[in-house]
């Protein structure tokens, strides 16, 4: 009964025992490894994996917060938001297969009446900009379209979504368009700014004007609708409750603006331009500012021509944008009130006067001969009044009343000899030559020409010519500062550049006795129920010291100019029931018609106002700007409006 030799099993050999032991040992080691790995994954790092599993299944869908309204000082709506629906594509849910993607675009194109190619191009462009953000294909698609898409979820899948969004709405259309600014989705460059640190991509932010300045109050915080999704990104049955985070609406912003005054200002500017065109001037643009001189609140501020910001609520076409910024249309996007830098003409004279009085060049009674023309400087340059008018020998009050150029030429000549460039330093003290600090982006500082500036641009020109080997770079003619420069500067000509807002601030400083107000638009931040959240305080004001008798002398001159016979704007304000202190200005600009200016102050115990108006290519100050100022003042004080054109031919 012995088994065949080669299949007979000998008793277990030491070799087999060893090898079985090796196999068993190997199994032990492998099981040990797996057990420790499991312990590490499940017990030691389990919490972290639970979080990852939750992050997997939860899709965060932003529910946009409505942007806060902007209201005027009386609580009237200036800008509001309305709910709209958007048709969006979720790029990472698009089918990977090209044919399936094309089919989806074709179907969507048929529904939205867009070409599939256009949809594809939009998606490709946006995905390049922002990798994972949803791409808006159409806004305000209409109920029928949304229903169609919702019913065919199987065709469109998770790739097409129709969320509710909010669009900006402007009930007053063109009103204050430039200063309100526009809104739009945050772009990749902005996402990196500290200013937008906690802002998620796809959020609508202010892109300009007030919308930009007070964006953090107006923006609100988007809500978070947390959906449970499966691996294909499709909504799944809620296995665990996911509480949504409600959107937080943006705060309401109250502006110092007065809608009525703003409307009247824009209309008055239009009428002034009409007057100028009637006088044969090719006027088509201008700006105005109405400022409370006691605290710097901007009551109205506008630039002409204006535009309807509604066009920016939806994506704007390139052609439309070009039309809004082209010079031939008057560049409606350009806010001339804060960014238009012009020579101011005779409206600068009170500044020259204050500088001369304070430095003792003259007293209010100093008589200065003011013939039609005078010769100044070693070069024998001749300077004449407008129309070579001879006013005889006059003192400051009359010089302001009739706007004698020669009187102020003399002041410019004398001031040039003084150390410290007194007119320049007083102009700077009164707020010219640097931004006023208004709560708007894009403000320009203008230019106060002086000896150092001229040397600087001369050097720049020389360097440029040496570098580019050209005859002229057009920066400067390389001539040094001369007394003639100062003479021109004294009457607001030459290289002086100032914005209408700066002129309003300078006049406010003179009339309020030396307080350089910081103009501002924002007054209060209120929550969406109208409760006060925060009062906006503009930065500290600066003080300039000057004697009240000097101030009074200048005000007397301005009062006379607006009321006395021979006053430059006396005929414009003929019959106007309020006291007005005003100065016309007619700025000569190379190669174009004179620019019409008027800056005035109307005192009132409760609602004093400084108004500055300018009309590009508008002719004499009394012809275009002053009549607009009268309309604005009439609106502010509630008196009957009358468009009265002046006839003064002085600058």
């Amino acid at each position: 009964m012995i088994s065949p030799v080669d299949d007979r099993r000998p008793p277990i050999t030491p070799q087999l025992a060893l090898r079985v032991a090796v196999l068993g040992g190997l199994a032990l080691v492998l099981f040990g490894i797996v057990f420790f790995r499991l312990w590490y994954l499940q017990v030691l790092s389990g919490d972290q994996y639970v979080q990852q599993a939750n992050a997997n299944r939860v899709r965060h869908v932003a529910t946009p917060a409505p942007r806060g309204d902007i209201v005027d000082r009386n609580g009237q709506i200036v800008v509001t938001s309305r709910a709209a629906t958007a048709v969006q594509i979720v790029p990472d849910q698009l089918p990977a297969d090209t044919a399936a993607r094309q089919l989806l675009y074709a179907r969507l194109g048929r529904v939205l009446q867009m070409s599939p190619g256009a949809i594809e191009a939009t998606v490709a462009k946006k995905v390049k900009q922002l990798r994972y953000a949803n791409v808006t294909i159409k806004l305000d698609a209409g109920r029928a379209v949304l229903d169609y898409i919702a019913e065919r979820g199987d065709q469109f899948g998770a790739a097409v979504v129709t969320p509710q969004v909010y669009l900006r709405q402007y009930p007053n259309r063109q009103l204050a368009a430039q200063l309100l600014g526009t809104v739009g989705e945050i772009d990749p460059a902005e996402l990196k700014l500290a200013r937008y640190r906690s802002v998620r991509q796809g959020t609508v932010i202010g892109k300009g004007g007030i919308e930009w300045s007070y964006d953090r109050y107006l923006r609100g915080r988007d809500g978070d609708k947390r959906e449970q999704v499966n691996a294909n990104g499709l909504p799944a049955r809620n296995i665990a409750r996911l509480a949504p985070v409600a959107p937080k609406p943006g705060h309401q912003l109250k502006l110092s603006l007065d809608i009525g005054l703003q409307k009247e200002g824009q209309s008055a500017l239009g009428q002034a331009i009409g007057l100028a065109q009637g006088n044969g001037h090719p006027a088509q643009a201008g700006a105005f500012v109405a400022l409370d001189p006691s605290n710097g609140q901007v009551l109205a501020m506008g630039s002409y021509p204006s535009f309807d910001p509604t066009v920016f609520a939806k994506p704007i076409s390139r052609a439309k944008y070009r039309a809004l910024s082209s010079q031939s249309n008057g560049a409606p996007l350009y806010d001339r009130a804060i960014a238009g830098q012009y020579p101011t003409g005779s409206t600068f004279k009170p500044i020259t006067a204050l500088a001369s009085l304070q430095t003792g060049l003259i007293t209010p009674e100093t008589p200065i001969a003011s013939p039609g023309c005078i010769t100044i400087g070693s070069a024998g340059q001749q300077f004449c009044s407008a129309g070579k008018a001879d006013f005889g020998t006059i003192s400051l009050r009359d010089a302001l009343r009739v706007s004698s150029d020669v009187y102020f030429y003399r002041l410019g000549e004398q001031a040039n000899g003084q150390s410290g460039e007194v007119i320049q330093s007083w102009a700077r003290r009164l707020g010219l030559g640097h931004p006023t600090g208004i709560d708007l982006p894009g403000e320009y500082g203008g230019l106060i020409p002086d000896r150092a500036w001229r040397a600087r641009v001369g050097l720049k020109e020389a360097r440029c010519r040496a570098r580019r080997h050209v005859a002229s770079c057009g920066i400067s003619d390389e001539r040094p500062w001369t007394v003639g420069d100062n003479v021109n500067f004294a009457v607001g000509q030459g290289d002086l550049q100032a914005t209408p807002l700066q002129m309003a601030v300078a006049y406010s400083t003179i009339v309020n006795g030396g307080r350089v107000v910081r103009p501002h638009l924002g007054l209060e931040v209120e929550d969406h129920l109208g409760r006060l959240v925060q009062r906006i305080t503009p930065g500290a004001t600066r003080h300039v010291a000057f004697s009240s008798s000097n101030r009074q002398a200048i005000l007397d001159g301005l009062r006379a100019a607006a009321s006395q016979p021979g006053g430059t704007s006396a005929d414009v304000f003929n019959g106007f029931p309020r006291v007005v202190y005003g100065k016309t200005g007619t700025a000569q600009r190379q190669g174009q018609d004179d620019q019409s200016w008027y800056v005035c102050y109307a005192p009132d115990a409760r609602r004093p106002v400084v108004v500055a108006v300018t009309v590009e290519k508008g002719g004499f100050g009394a012809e275009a700007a002053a009549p607009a100022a009268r309309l604005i003042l009439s609106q502010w004080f509630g008196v009957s409006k009358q468009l009265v054109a002046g006839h003064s031919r002085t600058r």
Partner: protein
Amino acid sequence: MTTAPLPIPGTPIQPAGEPPPPERVGLLPFDPLLALATLALCVCSLVTLNSATRGDVAGQPHFYVDRQALYFGVGLVAMVGLSRVDYSRLRELKYGLYAALLGTIVLVLVLGRAARGSQRAITLPFFSFQASELGKVLLILALAAFVVDRSRRLADRDTTARVMLLALIPAVLVIIQPDLGSGMVYVVIALAALFVAGSSWRHFAALAALGAVSISLVAVAAPAVGVTLLKPYQVDRLTAFLNPTDNPRKQGYQQIQSKIAIGSGQKTGRGHQATQTKLNFLPEHHTDFIFAVVGEQYGFVGAALVLSLYALLIWRALRILTMAKNLYGALVAGGIVAMLMFQVFVNVGMTVGIMPITGVTLPLMSYGGSSVLTTLLAVGLLQSIYAQGRAATAYKNRVLRF
């Protein structure tokens, strides 16, 4: 067999007057612990599939469970049947078994339908037959027979080379299918047969060196000269294992999701909140990644229980190896032990992120008729070896206990 035990040298001959030692043989014709581990794993598989695949087939919540139960039923019947047969008889069929192995694999290559880029199965009316799975058992039986034939010349390099060649032919064929996992199992089976038979350590060292050289040839040198032996997705899987976060949406995805699933199970599991499984983040959760489902739904407790059952299975298999009545039985048991160990470690290692994704099923747990049937046949063979060994040692009193 004689009824009276032969005296074993060294043991005192029993005095004639004393009664024989009590019969402990034949109480059970199978190993109860092995049977327990097998049945428990079947139950674990059904329980896990039941909760994991409820929503996979619309309208049929029990689609996978019903089919898996049917496979278990058929497989258990086959297992019991095989355990009643003397496995030694299969040794005579070695050429037929090997021919069947090669024949089915080639048939799959010729007829096989394309399923997810691979031709691994022959579609039958009620299920698709994966030849490479059943081939594992066929190869174990055939190779063990070849090794027994040359058991006197194990020291020859020639023997080692021939055995390895016999395994490499079907391995290369299934890798072409492509089924890299099964191909590697074939190689492991051959190594195990040689190891248990007692081949020289030097041969294994040489094989290891050869393997290292050929792997570097396949993975580095061949692509460099423009010959791709592995499919791109296989290369991606193997390299994605090294850096899963490089491309989380593609190759590393499965591994990352599997780790998240297991990790999020924590100590006691997420039960009905097992979102990784239920929301389909875990791919192939009824087949290759079923261990991750266990880990997520039942936590460390459940995963450890399943692993313990495998440990029990392998321990009993090793014990049966030592009890085999002949070398053939020991070699077959050794092959089965190696197959089970390799599959369990590679599959579980893959789900916990310490092994690359190779498409190796988890024996008994993974859904699939071929895999289930193969594993149950292997267990049936083990039971047969056990029963035969017990029957033989009942008289030889040669039970090694450990």
